[in-house]
């Protein structure tokens, strides 16, 4: 490759492919190359650079996924698993959570305030959820929330409503950590909802144990205009099972995960597959994004990954997959509501104490109305989310409700993130205040598919 070719700007560094350089541009690009090379350093022409703090960068780590446990096979693979019962609604319009739900929200809210909030800033920097935070989440039973009682969990019935309230309460503390904490339970809930007896008895005992495995629901793919219902990851039927090929993105704690639920197209339909991390052909690469960084988001590459015929989770006609997508969107809506509430709770005292022109800026309508609109849209987001959640819990069709909730939460959630920073002005742009992190986190809501579910 000629030097000129390698200096062409298009197609890299965010430059569209149609761009071209003029002679001055090539000169600048050449100088930049020189500046980057270590020749300068060898001849000691560059001032010693500051020691950079370790962060996970795109090329920070790349591992074959490591297995730390084997899941012992148990149960019959031809028998349907135990299922949580629908939570029927009496037909009364009601905004009051059940006593159990309220208790759960109180406990999780306390955990979010006392454990997640103090850990959030550093977890964002390091792209890691601290061990202590994850341990504490086990103590309050988050991973087993969606597992039926019969299988060692705490759920007497469909947990979509309780899960929604929990996700909201966690995200009020920190969205990134909430995602890290919710990921194993999401896989467990999926097993509870769709697993065969064998799948449930093989995997679920580990989730109600003290050493809960990291697990990830991998539906996203790194492509433009990604349509989750048509994954380009493929599953091909073989004599003894399936071969999976493709790339999944936004995989929570990929390097630690011991069990993946992977979305792939099988004979034209999207299907969920259970893939243990010890399976040959898996590679994980750190892929941090603009936000939700505490969840250690990663890319999972599957190259000729062979799984057994018992690896399919749920139906192969696309119905289980669609249900999974909807429940996952519901979880992201709940996360948006929680983080939106954090923004509102933060800007409210701020605008009342920050003074300009001799009085608190809250006394100005342009400021006060922004706060009012945050409150109005946030409540609308919450009600849409609760409506979808309560229908899901009752076993009713909630595809329309969750679609509308997602639309509103994506759009207004982002507006809330934007206004949160704007209300603090320059202070909002610096990391001294959490609003810039919430801004980055809230961008995830309209984008994420899978990753967590309720």
């Amino acid at each position: 490759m000629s030097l000129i070719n390698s200096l062409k700007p298009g197609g890299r560094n965010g430059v569209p492919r149609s761009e071209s350089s003029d002679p001055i541009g090539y000169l600048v690009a050449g100088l930049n190359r020189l500046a980057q090379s270590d020749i300068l350093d060898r001849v000691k022409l560059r001032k010693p650079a500051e020691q950079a703090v370790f962060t996970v960068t795109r090329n920070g780590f790349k591992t074959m996924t490591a297995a730390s446990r084997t899941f012992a096979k148990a149960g019959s693979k031809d028998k349907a698993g135990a299922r949580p019962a629908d939570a029927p609604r009496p037909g009364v319009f009601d905004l009051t959570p059940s006593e159990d739900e309220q208790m759960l929200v109180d406990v999780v809210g306390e955990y979010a305030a006392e454990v997640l909030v103090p850990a959030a800033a550093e977890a964002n920097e390091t792209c890691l959820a601290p061990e202590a935070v994850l341990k504490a989440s086990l103590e309050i039973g988050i991973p087993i929330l969606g597992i039926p009682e019969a299988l060692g969990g705490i759920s007497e019935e469909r947990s979509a409503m309780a899960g929604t309230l929990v996700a909201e309460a966690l995200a009020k503390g920190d969205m990134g950590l909430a995602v890290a904490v919710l990921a194993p339970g999401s896989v467990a809930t999926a097993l509870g909802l769709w697993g065969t007896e064998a799948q449930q008895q093989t995997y679920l005992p580990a989730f109600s144990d003290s050493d809960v495995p990291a697990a990830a629901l991998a539906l996203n793919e790194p492509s433009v205009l990604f349509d989750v219902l048509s994954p380009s990851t493929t599953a091909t039927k073989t004599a003894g099972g399936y071969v999976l090929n493709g790339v999944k993105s936004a995989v929570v704690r990929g390097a630690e995960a011991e069990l993946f639920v992977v979305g792939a197209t099988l004979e034209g339909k999207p299907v969920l597959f259970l893939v243990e991390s010890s399976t040959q052909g898996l590679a994980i690469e750190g892929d941090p994004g603009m936000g939700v960084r505490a969840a250690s988001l990663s890319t999972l590459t599957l190259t000729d990954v062979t799984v057994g015929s018992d690896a399919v989770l749920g139906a192969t006609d696309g119905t289980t997959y669609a249900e999974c997508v909807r429940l996952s969107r519901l979880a992201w809506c709940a996360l948006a509501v929680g983080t939106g509430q954090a923004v509102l709770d933060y800007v409210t005292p701020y605008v009342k104490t920050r003074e300009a022109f001799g009085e608190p800026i809250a006394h100005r309508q342009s400021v006060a109305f922004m706060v009012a609109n945050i409150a109005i849209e946030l409540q609308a987001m919450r009600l849409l989310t609760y409506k979808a959640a309560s229908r899901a819990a009752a076993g009713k069709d909630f595809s329309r409700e969750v679609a509308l909730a997602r639309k509103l939460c994506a759009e207004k959630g982002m507006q809330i993130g934007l206004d949160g920073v704007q209300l603090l002005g320059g202070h909002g742009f610096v990391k001294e205040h959490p609003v810039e992190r919430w801004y980055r986190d809230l961008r995830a809501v309209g984008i994420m598919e899978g990753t967590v579910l309720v």
Partner: protein
Amino acid sequence: MAINLDDPKKFGALRDQAHQVAMNMLRPISRKYDQAEHEYPKELDMLAAMIDGLSESGASEGAGAAGVRREESGDDKSVKNGSNLASVMSIAEMCWGDVGLLLSMPRQGLGNSAIASVANDEQLKRFEGTWAAMAITEPGVGSDSANISTTAVKDGDEYVINGEKIYVTSGERADSVVVWATLDKSLGRAAIKSFVVQKGTPGMKVERLEHKLGIRASDTAVITFTDCRVPAENLLGSPEVDVKQGFAGAMATFDNTRPLVASMAVGCARASLDLTRDLLEQAGVVVDYDRPAINQSAAAAKFLQMEADLEGARLLMLQAAWMADNRQPNSLEASMAKAKAGRVGSDITLSCVELAGSLGYSENELLEKWSRDSKILDIFEGTQQIQQLIVARRILGLSSAELK
């Protein structure tokens, strides 16, 4: 107790019945009275008689504005779905039919809501069956209704009212008007009281009817009061000027009426959305709830956004009504509902005209009419800006002196 935001089951029949009335009674005459402004929709007398019949039979709990009074009975802890929810649901359906005609419904005026909200038991009985309009706004006073200058002076067993009121909905057709007047302007908002003035009272005169952008089926009157004498017992609520209690009594009416106006906006916007969905489907655009909006056509993506906004407004409306049914203070939620419903009502009805192109702009369809009707719903009973002010003060804990 369990969170459930589906429509209350017990009002399903009421909602469906209102929908049938809207479709078969209001829609067929909707364009007629939009064009024949100020002509009395005589068809409504039949409808009113039917509704009266239904309420006597007890089959139409809260079918109209008269049902907004907060029920005092019962102190059990069970969750109530009562007349407030019934009202917002049925009014939304009726406004799916036609907002202007709903506002012209005999005996369902906003004045009836005021009576239901603040009248004592004796007054409630005396004014039963009256059709009451509401007169608050004056030429110089709009949103700052605490600043009204119409006066009421006690003279023996009567009050003498003087002043001019504008934007009185059903001001000509109603049997009576609930008038806001001050007993003593120097005492501020605490001295503002409401009076029921019967039609035909000497000194009360309908000066003219307005020509309007929308809700043209509804008459909007200018009424003057010149030494108009009303019996002292027509003062609603307490005649005492309680400076501490202040404006709260009069303003309490709004906690009840704002969810109703939100429901009007919700109904009108849904009419636009329902028709637009049908028109889009005829053009081959079907909205898919599972596919991401960015993978669908721009029209489908816009539709999803509008439907999400409408559902948000509708749930805020139901929340405010549910809180009233369960005797929880709801002025914050009532204002939230009206703010959201008012603004999305405009966005949705105007965007539906845009999606339907010149078909939507033409009088051949009702889309253009709904986009004119919806505008007033973001103005009366407190403009968008007033709602935002109320929400902001509540959220921020600021007084009206701090946040002006």
